[in-house]
């Protein structure tokens, strides 16, 4: 058995400490050590974005980090978004989660936690993005079900943006 080292961090506001192998990925640490299985792993090489969590408020790929690299940091996972973990009824959802539900922005829902965690800091820094900015912000997250269209709609809804004008047949750029 490899030597274990201590990893100490705050996850969703709760301090925690575990002795872990240095090679343990942060994604595996969150999922299997802490049981926070809302963080999903889709590619293990940093492309799909399903494993995105917040490290000190910024989006990171938890499959590209070792747990011990998060030592001393604050981690937020999808379980930490809704005030009470999204127990009963939509009142307890984070506004972005509520918008996703309203706009049918998820189908299988596997990529959704990573997309939410990507969007949270994006919307903090860009409170009223346009469609191009939203799509660019999403371009590091893969979704195979939705075609992204309703995800974009949900972001607009969350920003309380006015609905987009109907698509015009004109091609003037």
């Amino acid at each position: 058995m490899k030597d274990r080292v201590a990893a100490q961090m705050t996850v969703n506001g709760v301090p925690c400490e575990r002795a872990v192998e240095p090679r343990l990925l942060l994604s595996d640490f969150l999922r299997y050590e802490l049981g926070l299985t809302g963080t999903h792993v889709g590619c293990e090489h940093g492309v799909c974005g399903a494993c995105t969590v917040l490290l000190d408020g910024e989006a990171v790929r938890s499959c590209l980090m070792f747990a011990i690299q998060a030592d001393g940091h604050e981690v937020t996972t999808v379980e930490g978004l809704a005030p009470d973990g999204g127990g009963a009824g939509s009142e307890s959802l984070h506004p972005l989660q509520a918008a996703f539900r309203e706009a049918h922005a998820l189908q299988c829902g596997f990529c959704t936690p990573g997309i939410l965690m990507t969007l949270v800091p994006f919307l903090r820094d860009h409170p009223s993005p346009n469609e191009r900015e939203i799509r660019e912000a999403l371009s590091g997250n893969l979704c195979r079900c939705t075609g992204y269209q309703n995800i974009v709609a949900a972001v607009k809804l969350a920003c309380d943006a006015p609905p987009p004008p109907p698509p015009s047949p004109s091609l003037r750029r």
Partner: protein
Amino acid sequence: MRRNEDARLLTGRALFVDDVQVEGMLHVAFLRSQHAHACLRTVDVAAARRRPGVVAVYTAADLGDYWRPGPLLVPPPPIAGLVFNACTQLPLARDKVRHVGEPIAMVVAESRYLAEDALDDVMVDAEPLAAVVDVEAALAPGAPLVHDHLPSNVAAHVVQRKGDYGRARAGAHATIRRRFRYDRGASAAIENRAVAAQWDPRAEELTVWDTTQAPIPIRNGLASLLGLLESQVRVIAPFVGGGFGPKIMMFYPEELLVPWAALRLGRPVKWTEDRQENFYATTQERGQVHDAELAIARDGKILGVRDVFLHDTGAYDPYGLTVPINSQCTLLGPYDVPTYESEFTAVFTNKTIVTPVRGAGRQHGVFVMERLLDFAAAELGIDRAEIRRRNLLRPEQFPHNHEIIFQDSAPLVYDSGDYAPALDEALRIIGYERFVRDEQPRLRAAGRHVGIGVVCYVEGTGIGPYEGARVTVEPSGRVRVATGVGTQGQGHFTAFAQIVAEVLGVDVERVHVITGDTREFHWGTGTFASRGAVVAGSACHAAALAVRERILDVASRHLEAAKQDLELADGHVRVRGAPDSAVSLGELALKANPLRGAVRPGTEPGLEATAYFGPARGSTANGVHAAIVEVDPETALVEVRRYVVVHDSGRVINPLLVDGQIQGGVAHGIGNAFYEQLVYDENGQLLNASFMDYLLPTATDVPPVETAHRETPSPLNPLGVKGVGEAGAIPTGAAFAQAVEDALSDYGVEITEIPLSPNRLFELITQAGRGGAGGRPKR
């Protein structure tokens, strides 16, 4: 309409298979073949077994009687003269490996990390053989054989005919003939496959969590293979992170071996595929080469089609002929095709197994037919939309028998449809006439390369055999619906709830749907062929109607009113015109299950009913896709400016869900058309086995899809619905090719292959233009 399942998914509470964590759980890693084709001489696992933390290592030799080829899932349909050589996949390779990624040994260890460490200890001595990669070369005399006991690499040969094509051709004004290629792609569900299993020695029950689209057949198969009663095996397909077809292949070696190891070791065992394994070990689709010919009259009327194609089935063919037969049948599209001659040869290659992936071969047929019509239109000087309109089946031609056999073994009969208005609506929405007349000339004059594509398709959906559902009104007044199909994001929790809620007069959110757990429901087949809403939805409807009858029986006695005077609404039964008479469904559920007293003879307790539905044959959805794209001939980058889908999937249960299916399907289709291609080298090595190199479309690549629905109900089910799950992905390649070709019309580029890529398109532009970098317009 909000989805019932979303709160769980959005907050991270939804259970996916890899989330299953049980005390004492062991973890599995598979040693897979590095060679596409090789003789296995020895597999030495002694060192791996000695590694600390390793609990067991298995090779084919350790499996004993459990080692046997997988089942043939879909026996070939009854077509005269059909040849089919069944060679199904093996749990662990024994004498030979036939594709890269084929499992050779299974390591079970205390953690996944340790299991993967131990893979390094396994020594495989393999003698590489020449690989069979290209489907044409595979059939050449002297080609290496994927399966040594067969005389050639032919997996199947099928000919289907309608009328006398030769005669039609002799009388044709013109024949259009081309070779078309459609290369391989990955399904690429974001969730990889996973299986976990736990044997409970006290209950003598095996629980298996599996990312399958077909939990019930998995349960039945496992019980039989493991010598257990079916009731001793519980298979749960919890939330599944995208299916798209490959998750209904069975049995994958892993889903056979993980439960076996859990029983043998007496400890819970889990395996989760990683992305690289997914590229090698999860089934794929799409490799076909077509030589097709269209015989056409001067007025653009189709006289007949002849198509000869090769279908790459990969190293094994457990899924029978579903994919090539879909290609064969879907080619006919919404058109009146008086004569048809279609011949295909399915070919074994040293590549990953081919089974249906969203579209399941239909897109190939659509691509061939639509491209032929485009070339015919150009040849005859007929507008592309017009040549289609002239050939569409008319409403009075339904039901329309194409006189060939479909994948469900039934004749290909279109149940209903109204095609011309769908075409007109798509043309109207995208502004076809104005674009072609005014806008395109203006844009061309300004040096821009903008083109339009309009294609039609018919999709066989909702095939049998059957599904079932049980509907129960609980004393709380909430309604439980259990059905056997698995769900992978389609919104079944909501769509089925809507069907039942409407019949019982309750709020949709009060209907709790359970899918994919064999303990809850154990009759049925699975989610495939765009059939969930059609077949399982109809079963839910039938069960709800039966429960409604029981509610009315109990209420009629309780309220002392005739059944026909009662109405169901807001979770209550009332006597019409007497609002105070209301009694809640929950109260009636209690009355239907008394604790004391006598009941009438023959009375069944509770407000519960189970019902089944099996359609006589599949229902046929149809639609039209129209796209406007802009191509930069210098870079060969393509931007999709507009994408319009007019779809007719019969009655729409939930437009939001249907739109979602179409939007996702179009994205998948655009990926297949322009980004996604599995590239194999001449030795059968997959060269882009990661998301770094295999490109899925991202949010910046996919356009918003403008959808419109038409509703021509299906006469084949009580809901009048048709399937929609694959519709978005089927005609996308054809629409994309036509629009790109139109955009580049001054270069004379002809597109006869999918997927394109910016690189490939650049080559085509350069070849066609015969110019320098980026080519040069012909004119």
